[in-house]
């Protein structure tokens, strides 16, 4: 059902929201990865065992299954200022 939006944001407000953040040149995003215990977490272990290198700004939270992931986890992360969320499973 369509309803008319009243008091719509002015163009300037939209721009403020849409404006991408320009980080410093050496900026590295802070990333949280949600990983399934059985596959992606195991793969992250394997990456270590094989001494594969990836950026240290990825931190992994282990889940029993990525099916366990709730949108509140993702939203919480963004709300608190995480730059990226990676779900692997």
């Amino acid at each position: 059902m369509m309803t008319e939006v009243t008091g719509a944001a002015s163009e300037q407000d939209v721009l403020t929201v849409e404006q991408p953040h320009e980080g410093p040149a050496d900026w590295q995003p802070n990333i949280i990865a949600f990983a399934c215990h059985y596959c992606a977490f195991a793969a992250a272990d394997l990456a270590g065992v094989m001494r594969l290198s990836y950026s240290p700004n990825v931190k992994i939270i282990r889940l029993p299954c990525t099916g366990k992931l709730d949108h509140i986890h993702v939203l919480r992360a963004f709300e608190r200022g995480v730059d990226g969320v990676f779900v692997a499973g």
Partner: protein
Amino acid sequence: MSNNSPSKKIGAVLIVGGGIGGMQAALDLADSGFKVHMVHRDPSIGGTMVMLDKTFPTGDCAMCMISPKMVEAGRHLNLDIHTLAEVVSVEGQEGDFRVRVRHAPRYVDGSKCTGCGDCEAKCPKKVASEFDQGLGVRKAIYSFFPQAVPNSRAIDAAQCIYLTKGKCRSCEKVCKAGAINYEDKGEEIELNVGSIILSPGLDRYDATVRGEFGLGRWENVVTSIQFERILSASGPYKGEIKRPSDERHPRKVAWIQCVGSRDPHNGNPWCSSVCCMYATKQSIIAREHDRQIEPTIFYMEMRAFGKDFDKYVERAKHEYGVRYQRAMISAVREEPGTGNLILRYASEDGKLREETHDMVVLSVGLQPHKDAAAFAKTFGIDMNPYRFAKTSPLKPIETTRPGIYVTGTYQGPKDIPETVIQGSAVAGRAMALLSEARGTETVTKQLPPEKDVKGEEPRIGVFVCHCGINISSTVEINQVVSAVKDLPGVSYVTNTLYACAQDNQDIIKQTIKEQNLNRVVIASCTPRTHEKLFQETIREAGLNKYLFDLADIREQCSWCHKGQNEAATKKAIQIVKMSIAKSRIQEPLKTGAVGVTPACLVVGGGIAGMVASLALADQGFQVSIVERESGLGGLLNNVYRTLEGDDVQKFLKTKIGEVIGHPKINVYTGVEVKKTEGFVGNFKTTLTDGTTVEHGAVIIATGGMEYEPGEYLYGQNDKVVTQRQLEKRMAEGDMPGNGERFVMVQCVGSREEPNQYCSRVCCQDAVKNAIALKERNPQAHVVIIYRDIRNYGLREDYYTKARGLGILFVHYEVDRKPTVEPSGGKVKVKTWDYMLNRELVIEADWLVLSTGLRPHPAADKVAEMYKVTRNPDGYFLEAHVKLRPVDFPSEGLFVTGLAHAPKNLDETVSQALAAAGRAGVILSHESLAVSGIIAKHKRELCMSCLSCLRVCPFGSPYISEDGKISHNEVKCMGCGICAGICPAKAFQVNNFRDDQIVAMIDAEVDSEPGLIGA
């Protein structure tokens, strides 16, 4: 299935030798209702594996893998370890042996010694360390190695100043526990056991015999085991690669293969099976330690015959720049003044060359222990001519004396996984022999009551592990310690060298008590391998085992951020903070128990499936075999003889007869698995004919297929056959014709993309058939065109025999394969001869292709059904390449035979027995403890929207009588899909609760606000 009825058989087993094979057997048996006595001659168990730095292909630290097992063995209630001990006599028979064991004096009372090491620090006498292979020193009172089990010290009587000269007693003065006893005379005890397992392990070839290599003369020539110690973080150079003469970092390092192996004149005639791979591993690890190192491996033949071995060698060549040079080194001499070594060899073009290297590693072979002959006499068993225990390929773990079994390198040279396989195999065999006495000699564990921590403020203890240098070389441990010590809830923080070692486990338990901790966080390695161990540790200290969290700062931090110490340290701090945040709101959890159906389903009725079935049925368990073909036997139906000459068809017919006649075995032929559900202890499988089978374990033995070649005129020319077809014709008696010429081509369909693996059986097949041809008709000509002849282990004898019979071996490289064309009634084969440096043209009456193996196509469906993974080649992937070679990661599922990887008949038999042993451990329990990590359902929040019912893969939510959702916690595997989908948040997974995950997110962000958060 405990059975307390009186019986003549004794429910205890003696294991002689505490290396990895003996330990596997001991733990399997002790975990399934048998009392185990382990006798070991060193002051600590561990054998050869503990001396290794890392293992391939994963590069896991050997100590990190074996240490949890040693710890488990060391504290197992039904496993008594007798170190510094040997068996002096054995009387009695199968089921009831009386064994006398002599304990040498230790001079330290193990019940008083805390392993603090004060005595060691004080002892004035330095001795070359056996463990460090003479490269390091120990004291006269010593611990064999830092993670020793038991960890009480021992006095070396031959070196102790007091015991040899009558004065000193320094250790006695310093020992606060009063554990020193110079009057110790040792003792002799008698044990009564039903079966005996021999796992005495190996000796290494004494390479000083090969004077031309200069070991003991040139300082920078070391043996491969010395090089393992050099690589080890706990070794003489703390993991830095240095050469002994001047402790400089070597640049060019040469490995010389087959030192003392494949050499009947100066060494042993057999192939030691492991040296090609350990040299490859050492060269890769050396490069990882020090990028400046340029490794060269001088070899005769690259015997990378095991699962994924060829891929590893390819990686060494292409990713690590390891140079493989096919050559036999004739002499090594030192360059005067530099300590460098000049190696002399004839290269492939026949020219003599000299090369200078900074350091030389001799890949010394394996041989039976020096006391092997006396040992065999004590136990009353026969040896083969080489002093290994005498066995047969069809009964690979049985000695000549009933009730006495053999495992590991005493049976023949072999690597770690095969030793572990045989360890479980002998356990399975002993379980079958003594099944009626199961549970008669064992006791159950008395745990301290669980401390009630409800309502207490969190008092978290944090232990940050160095893991030798695995973590500490990249992560600044002290910074981690100080970063977390003031966090709310943290009441104690410390660092530890190896958190998993027995001494540190004791320290952790002690600390829990002293500091009154009610939660523990350990920052070390992955929870996938170590969580259980630490959970048991804290439970033993009276804490509920779920008040624990493991922060993975090794696999997911130090190992993948090498060289970025600052960033890695920062990440490690974050990881530990996240763990602490979770730990702070952990609650004690209850563990349930679930019954076990004492039955097993075996998928596949080939020899692997049949041997496993018989071994389990003999233990008293019900077995169902599902075979898609109309008859049993699988690929073995096409094999007539083993390389060693055993009659395979007779063996196969006997086994089929035993299976069909066994009252505990049901055989379903012509059907497949249609549907399966359930979990460890409680599977329910429906077959395509509608039969439903309930079972507690599954063994997957789907076998393999022979590759059907499209190359070398196969299918186009009658004169081109496979080894299998040749074998059949010979069995039917119509080969060979007089003076016929046979050309065999190896590696057809193997060791090339997309099948970059060795099929392992083809070299044995070619040599077997070639010998048979020559023995039937000495006028026959046989040429084998090969890449590497891989007659590993004692199979080398047949390669030697074949050459002696005049069979010609011509080497080829993969980029210069032989070509074939029809030529009248014959086949013309052209191949480059690298020795003669010209093309050879052979007119063959028969071209015989040594075709490789493939996994069975039916494995696809089975993998999907049981949710188990396979490697890129399609072979099932075991839970751990080294230490869990027949287990799947999911409990209750096992793999055996060709489904796992190509292997020979004797190895298939061993692995099948191992699968039966492992399954027997589960089936022997009346009930299994269920994890506390399950979803909890709050009915008061539930709206019965049925989302969970639809998504749960295990069927644990159900509609109860009141029409609302209920939850069957026994079926729950704790995946939490229900929790993810539930709109009312009525489901929460224990220890993965939403508030815990949110706490982890917050802890991560608090220490690193992102761009927007900043």
